[in-house]
């Protein structure tokens, strides 16, 4: 690991001020630290935001669930409020990594990293999330830009993620047998305003599958999905799953998700 300056920010303002194009915010460190140890990443400044109290916590209002950026996966998984308002979101958090990861990893870290196989981005898409930063509020559909890429600026700090409470929802994933990241993960959510199908793992970036959503809008049942054609073009392909398999699994897991709604 290359040497770096460590800062522990007392508030968001200080964190943002310390940040530069050669810095990283540190919350759970589940990606940042291994990347640094493996020599895949190095930074001049590491800005620890764990001590900023206001970044952590869960709030439920009538229509939304708002989760602070440094809230740990285990906290979301075990939150009675989340379980009651959006049980599928608590279940998603319960299925991330292993207990060690869930006790360190944070929701803000997960979406800021935007790993194409991470779970949370699909929830953001499916649950019409708004990502609140120190500067602005961003719709999830605009937030995720590409592989490991978001619209965040280097000095921008995610403060909270606000999810809309759907009528029904379910997240189903096919885990990579080795890493247990999602080979594909499908998050189906039915809102009064419409249906979203957030898909992770399949392509270089999470996306809302409009074809599946369209079919489900007409008929919210797993049989409606049978007639949807899902192309394998643009799908990821690796030693664990070909693009053809992934395309078929998007369909299979969308059906599972609808059945579980």
């Amino acid at each position: 690991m290359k040497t770096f300056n460590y800062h522990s920010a007392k508030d968001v303002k200080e964190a943002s001020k310390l940040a530069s194009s050669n810095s990283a915010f540190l919350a759970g460190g589940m990606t940042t630290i291994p990347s640094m140890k493996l020599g895949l990443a190095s930074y001049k400044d590491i800005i620890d935001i764990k001590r900023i109290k206001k970044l952590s916590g869960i709030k439920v209002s009538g229509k939304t669930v708002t989760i602070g950026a440094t809230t740990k996966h285990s906290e979301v998984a075990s939150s009675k409020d989340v379980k009651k308002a959006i049980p599928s979101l608590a279940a998603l958090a319960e299925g991330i990594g292993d207990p060690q990861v869930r006790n360190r990893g944070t929701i803000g870290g997960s979406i800021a990293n935007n790993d194409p196989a991470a779970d949370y981005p699909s929830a953001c898409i499916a649950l019409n999330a708004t990502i609140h930063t120190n500067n602005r509020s961003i719709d999830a559909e605009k937030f995720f830009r590409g592989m490991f890429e978001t619209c965040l600026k280097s000095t921008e700090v995610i403060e909270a993620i606000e999810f809309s409470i759907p009528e029904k929802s379910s997240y189903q994933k096919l885990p990579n047998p080795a890493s247990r990241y999602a080979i594909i993960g499908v998050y189906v959510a039915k809102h009064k305003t419409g249906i979203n199908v957030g898909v992770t793992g399949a392509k270089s970036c999470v996306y809302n599958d409009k074809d599946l959503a369209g079919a489900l809008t007409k008929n919210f049942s797993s049989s409606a999905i049978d007639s949807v054609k899902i192309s394998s073009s643009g799908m990821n392909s690796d030693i664990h799953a070909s693009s053809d398999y992934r395309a078929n699994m998007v369909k299979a897991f969308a059906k599972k998700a609808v059945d579980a709604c």
Partner: protein
Amino acid sequence: MASLVGSRVERKEDKRFLTGKGRYTSDINIANQTYAIFIRSPHARAKIKKIDTSKALKSSGVVEILTGEHIAQDKIGGLIAGWAIRSEDGSEMKCPANPPLAKDSVNFVGDPVAVVFAETLDEARLAAELVKVDYKVLKAVSNLGEAMNSEAIHDGIDKNLCYDWLLGDRQKTKEAFDKADKIIKLDIVNNRLIPNAMEPRACVIDYNTASEEITCYTTSQNPHLSRLIMSAFGGVAPENKLRVVAPDVGGGFGSKINLYNEEIVCSWASKKIERPIKWVAERTESFLTDTHGRDHITHAELAVTNDGKFLGFKNETIANLGAYARVFGTVTPTYLFGPCATGVYIMPAAYSNVKAVYTNTAPVDAYRGAGRPEATYTIERIVDKAAMELGMDPIEIRMKNFPTEFPFKQTLVHQIDSGDYVAGLNKAKEMADYDGFAARKKESESKGKLRGIGVTSYFEACGIAPSPVVMMLGCGVGLWESAEVRFNPTGQVTVYTGSHSHGQSHQTTFAQIAADELGVPIENVDVVHGDTDKGTFGMGTYGSRSLTVGGIAIVNACKKIVNKGKRIAAKMLEASPDEVDFKNGEFVVAKSNKKKTIGEVAFASYLPGVRDEVKSPLPEGDEPGLIESSFFDPANFSFPAGSHICEVEIDPETGHVKLDKYTAVDDFGTIVNPLIVEGQVHGGLAQGIGQALYENAQYDDSGQLITASYMDYTMPRADDLPDFNLGFTCTKATTNPLGVKGCGEAGTIAATPTVMNAVINALGGKEISLPATAEKVWKACKEMKKSNAKAA
């Protein structure tokens, strides 16, 4: 006193392992130690043009940087193959030199070329990045199937062929095939595995500048053998100036049998730089450089009659040795593989032909089961295929070809002393509720799932091995084991064994047998292993040999103690030695009913006199003390056997295979500790299931290992496994006094074919290659659906 053999004694090891108090190699720190980082080839095959260390040598904290040039200058020898195998044409096998640091060429990704020693680990790492190695990259040979038609990797080794070996009779087999009603053919790839011991390899070297002694703490399954090789072949130091200690070792599975480059280099370098050295592998180094396992391509044929009798068997295999031939590398695909090729069956004629080839991949060596899993997989898959093609039940075809009389002379080599294969399979059938399968299958189908059942019957030859036999077959050492049993004056017993425990629980099992033999409480028995300065010598632990060879040496040493004790007790009790009986720790003279405990006898043996009188309790000719040793050389291998049955449920929508039920019935002869044996079976099954469903080491065309981390190499996990339903039958081994047979590898040997037979059964007989990953199974389900639709 009740016998301890057979009882579920809780492990003496548990306290320190479960509370994190184990003492592993990387826990050891020596004052003033330096840290080593190895510079490894990033290429699978290349010539080394130049190594420039000038910049790195100036880096902060660097003590020394050594390369293959220095190794050559100091005439330090390399790594060796422990067995000389002869080809069918009589020629000797061909092995390349394998220097501890490559000087001229590198042959796999991870092959070490230089080493940095620095004051801290970080400084060593930073300096290592500054070592510039100029390579001329050559085309790698990474595909096993094409290796014999590729450019030779090593000078003078034509076709990359180490040997072309034959066991059995081609002519007789041909005649048997000519008489067959049907010939069943099978092509399989036995997938390559990475052993993945929980503890990565490590060594800590302490060179004493005054006594010129080197102490090497290392992660080894056989410290004495490592010392022998390092001294005799490496030329690092004479054996008496070299101490090898393998303290607690966190798993080996065969990968820690070998002496590795790093131990030789660090031992040699410690003397050179006159500083202690510490090296601990990172996980990536483990993936790249620990010896791998399996990796065969096999074509097999089974000749059968229409009513399911076996007439003959052919096995044509290409085995991957990787870049170099290591200690058990050459014997694993030959004598550990070939003889078991015909399985548990009467097979009138057979042969195994193995071509072992070099490729630009990590060396392949023994991995839990070593050769026997590959052999068992082949025969058990082809027997199932035969049953299917003949329309027979898989149990029926097996029963039909089992031997029923023992000793049984197996076709290719072994004289199996004992067994009852019929009883084992019947028990497994009952425990697995084989007859209820049809109903369970129907129930699965009603949920849209497929269900399959798989059967395997296996035997294996372990407890290696009679020295005259193995040396006749080319082994470079004898495979006996030694033990020393010491009573101290106050009555506790220390057992020194040449076996090595890296998870096998020797401290408990060996204490049980010694306590039984000597009639002392188990708390009074300590077992010491893993240090060449403690105990006589040892051949180590692999091939399920610890109890069947090492344990018997302990029994024999204990018997010598009792014999000497009888002579001493006789004198103390004023009787003749043949009037003294030994039972429950007491020497008793029946006619006078006088007795002495073994503790009193031990005390007397060390304090042979009394005040005011010149009188010794020792008989004339006996020396003071109560210490005996034994070298045990077994008369034969041991032959555990059994039958396993499992059921899988497949989701055809995703291809996910759920292992639903697993029944294992094994015959390990006498079981010393059922708790430990069950643990051994559980672990073995997990690894065999891993090979069947998950694990697969893959290299790309340029020889890069693409499964070099847990992100891509799939290990079996607890939630992948069902509750195991274990049963035992017992036919005692006739070749050792305890009647024990090895149990360490059986689970791994049987599980892979059992699971695959079940998967293929669920797929209606459609062949699928190892491992049965979700995507492969999903594809097979799709094709099955298509062909069913056509048929309808």
